């Protein structure tokens, strides 16, 4: 065994050092292997009609391969005679670069234009330290629209490199937020390398195929998003200066058709490499543009929550829906406290149906007095308020559902009374929900009692469409379901309804307004709805911060959106537009050969 092994080595050494010595010696003396890392293009992101909403573009940069600072200074001095260049700033940038990255080629022109590139190429002999590099850069042609959903890419951190187990090299880009981060594994391209044999005087002897591999492009994401409608919803909300969030989804599949969080930011800045000042500006902005209000902002669900309370009340036989339970005179007394209805003059005699249509708070205060804490908590949990929705984004918060245990822990066993339930019954107490939670309530009513799992990605290129599990909402069936549907339709189509003025003559919409009281300013305006009411296709939830009554601000946004969404012929038009790819030049640029011809990649010895 031992003899055999050593004999094998002996024969191998003989072959390498004696028989083939000439070839290897030649290679070692004259030639070098140079390798070039070829970036694997990142997969594109497309909307439901195949329109490209995120793609890649080639970015050229001119770098200085320096060994001492003098070389950089000299190069900049020479260049400044021909190219306008702020040398003081360039040196400052260089010093910062050197401090951070050490002896790595310095990108003097990180975003070089044609003039600079052709100048450097033509005068290559005069500038031995300059080199033109090209690489793919992520491009978000949509700018701020859907920025919170799409996310952005950025350069990998040292921690990413370690956690990637060899997937990344420093300088690579990786998804840092949103879908870019969530689907990093699918989107990421696999890098290849081209090994070149170079003679001592610099001429290339060609590629060494045994040491080269082609890069593999990442896979495209196909979203359920309808980008036209996304832009439209964004423009509707843009008419308000206030921060806002809105989600529209397919009630059957949970596929999200549009999702807006305003204010927004331009993800292209991140793909370009953020400057500290810009990031500071974004983070310091009091309206918090980086904050994803779709999945991370929790609000009191306000009157939209009355649908949940109604479900609990009917399921437990707490009220007779036909009977007038209270007479609303605008106030409700509990002990020595007075709770007010939003309508100061009062609603008069109210039964459950009219209480929902008019959004009468006093009626629901009465229910709050009668309903057990855990009964309501069970119903809210059935609607998914106590947990994350499981949406395919990296960050999401759960809502809040206060139970008996929650209150006992917070106030002590005897430290609280049924009075807390009075506020809870109008969605105003400890209950909290995101826009995503609320849209699921509307969707569950619309689709016959199913809690869907919302998602952005319909399928990954080459994989089948995602089928997500949906849960039954207990109690939301039979007469309860019919009742709630009729009530929500009444909100829009009956004369006293809180959203009646937004009724469309040709489309039946069922909705529920909400006005979230807010200790830090004006009320937030809520609206949730689904349409068409008799055969629901989509549900939506809209929140505009500090904008007042839901019926005044959010409901008309919903009306305009639905009017456009269901406009006869619109969807057929979108299907046709699928035929033309959004930016043909970019598709071509993704072919490997073109990439190579364009010299994409970085040289390393």
């Amino acid at each position: 065994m031992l003899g055999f092994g050593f004999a094998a080595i002996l024969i191998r050494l003989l072959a390498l050092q004696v028989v083939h010595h000439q070839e290897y010696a030649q290679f070692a003396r004259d030639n070098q292997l140079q390798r070039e890392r070829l970036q694997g293009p990142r997969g594109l992101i497309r909307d439901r009609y195949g329109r490209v909403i995120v793609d890649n573009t080639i970015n050229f940069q001119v770098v200085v391969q320096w060994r001492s600072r003098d070389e950089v200074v000299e190069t900049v001095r020479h260049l400044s005679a021909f190219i306008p260049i702020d040398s003081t700033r360039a040196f400052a940038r260089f010093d910062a670069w050197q401090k951070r990255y050490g002896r790595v080629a310095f990108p003097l022109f990180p975003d070089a234009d044609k003039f600079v590139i052709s100048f450097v190429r033509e005068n290559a002999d005069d500038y031995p330290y300059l080199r033109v590099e090209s690489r793919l850069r992520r491009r978000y042609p949509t700018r701020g629209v859907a920025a919170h959903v799409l996310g952005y890419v950025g350069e990998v951190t040292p921690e990413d490199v370690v956690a990637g187990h060899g997937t990344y090299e420093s300088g690579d880009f990786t998804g840092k937020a949103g879908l870019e981060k969530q689907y990093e594994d699918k989107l990421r391209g696999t890098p290849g390398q081209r090994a070149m044999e170079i003679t001592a005087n610099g001429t290339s002897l060609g590629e060494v195929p045994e040491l080269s591999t082609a890069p593999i492009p990442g896979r495209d994401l196909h979203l359920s998003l309808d980008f036209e409608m996304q832009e439209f919803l964004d423009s509707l909300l843009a008419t308000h200066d206030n921060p806002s969030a809105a989600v529209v989804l397919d009630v059957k599949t949970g596929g999200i058709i549009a999702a807006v969080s305003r204010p927004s930011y331009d993800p292209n800045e991140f793909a370009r490499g953020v400057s500290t000042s810009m990031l500071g500006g974004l983070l310091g902005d009091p309206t918090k543009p980086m904050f994803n209000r779709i999945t991370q902002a929790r609000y009191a669900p306000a009157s939209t929550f009355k649908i949940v309370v109604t479900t609990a009340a009917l399921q437990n036989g707490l009220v007779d829906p036909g009977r007038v339970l209270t007479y609303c005179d605008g106030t409700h007394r509990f002990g020595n406290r007075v709770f007010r209805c939003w309508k100061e003059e009062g609603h008069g005699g109210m039964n459950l149906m009219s209480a929902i249509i008019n959004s009468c708070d006093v009626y629901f205060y009465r229910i709050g007095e009668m309903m057990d804490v855990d009964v309501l908590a069970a119903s809210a949990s059935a609607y998914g308020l106590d947990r994350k929705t499981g949406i395919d984004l990296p960050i999401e918060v759960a809502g809040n559902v206060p139970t008996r245990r929650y209150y006992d822990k917070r106030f002590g066993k005897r430290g609280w009374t049924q009075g807390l339930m009075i506020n809870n019954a109008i969605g105003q107490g400890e209950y909290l929900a995101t826009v995503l939670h609320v849209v699921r309530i509307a969707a569950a009513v619309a689709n016959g009692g199913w809690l869907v799992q919302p998602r952005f990605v319909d399928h990954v290129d080459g994989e089948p469409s995602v089928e997500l599990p949906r849960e039954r909402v207990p109690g939301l069936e039979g007469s309860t379901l019919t009742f709630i549907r009729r009530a929500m339709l009444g909100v829009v189509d009956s004369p006293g309804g809180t959203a009646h003025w937004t009724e469309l003559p040709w489309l039946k919409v069922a909705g529920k307004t909400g006005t979230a009281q807010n200790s830090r300013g004006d009320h937030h305006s809520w609206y949730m709805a689904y349409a068409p009411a008799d055969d629901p296709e989509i549900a939506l939830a809209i929140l505009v911060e500090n904008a007042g009554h839901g019926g005044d601000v959010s409901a008309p946004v919903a009306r305009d959106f639905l009017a456009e969404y269901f406009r006869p012929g619109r969807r057929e038009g979108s299907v046709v537009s699928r035929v033309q790819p959004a930016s043909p030049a970019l598709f071509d640029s993704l072919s490997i050969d073109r990439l190579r011809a364009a010299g994409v990649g970085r040289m390393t010895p």
Partner: protein
Amino acid sequence: MKLARNFDWVIVLCAGILTLVGLSIVFSVSHSIGDAHAEWLRGSYFTRQLLWVGMGLLVMLVGFAVPFRVFETLAYAAYAACLTLLVVVLLLPAKGETQRWFVVGPLAIQPSEFTKVAVLLVWARILSGHRADPNRPRTLIPVLILFLVPFALVLKQPDLGTAMVFAGILLPVLFWRGFRGLHILFLLSPLVSSVLIIYGENVTHNPWPFGIFIVLILVVAYLRRAFLIESVSLVVANVGIGLFLPVFWNHLKPYQQNRVTNFLDPDSDKLGAGWQVIQSKIAIGSGGFGGKGYLEGTQKALEYLPAKHTDFIFSVLGEELGFVGALAILFVFSVLITRALMAAQKMKSEFAATLCVGIASYFAFQVFINIGMTTGIAPVAGIPLPFISYGGSSMLVSSFFIGLLLNCAARWSEY
């Protein structure tokens, strides 16, 4: 006095030559580059290696002076200590991609190296027990468990190469203690099957070698006059692996799969190991018959050779000292290994004899895998070349083994 009479000067001479060659190559590696960074490297690598040689000398003296019976007594304690270190190193935050080292002051210590000593001591102790018979489960099962625990821990680091060294020491030791050839087939064939299946499915896309191997097992079993039940269970075990391994394989993460295929087939990893191997082959091949001369190597200077002071140090040696130099090194290793095996035959103590065989296997296995790797005929495993590669843990372990060899040789007549 008796100790002096039986002192094996040949072994000491071999180890000494190898150490000196190692030191000079480490010096040569750091000699090439002319800037300040290299100055620092030279200072640090060469002087540190000197320090390790000094400590190695001390460890060797301990290994020699303390009677081997004491080590036999201490075997389990040493084993437990090493296992603890292996667990602790896994719990510490990872350094880079692997968790192999402790950093103590300026020095990095690799517990998996010391585990090589500990496993050998416990195996030798169990197998030399007066009623020990490796063909019986009563002896074999404890040995296998003592093998599998550190094997799994080192695999977790992940360090496939070092984990393989444990197996490389165990099999010859078992064989020496009279393990039946057929049983070795039992232990070895699942491993070979696994390799053939993974290789066949992911590298060559050719399932035939596995099929041929199954037939081969049957033929060997027939020729070795195996019982029917033995042949059947052999085949069932191997076919079972053939059925279940692909399922298990699909559960591994892609980077874990890559790690295995890159290990088995460096060429598939053109950006990493494959690149290293081709550069190493160019360096060695360009050395030619007589070499380029000490300190005259060019490939090392160009930073083409990765890990050139540790695992790939033989590339520099091959380049500078040529075929003659490489041959000389191989010769010295062969003498060392042969002396160890000769010593084993002379021992009266079964424990000492087993130790000698284990030590010989350690050197043989490491030398074969390391040089095989640099010349492109063995997988790229992070295994150092004893005495030559830069690295403290390896130096201490090799020196201690030499001490033990001298110890056994000098006390050959003792029980």
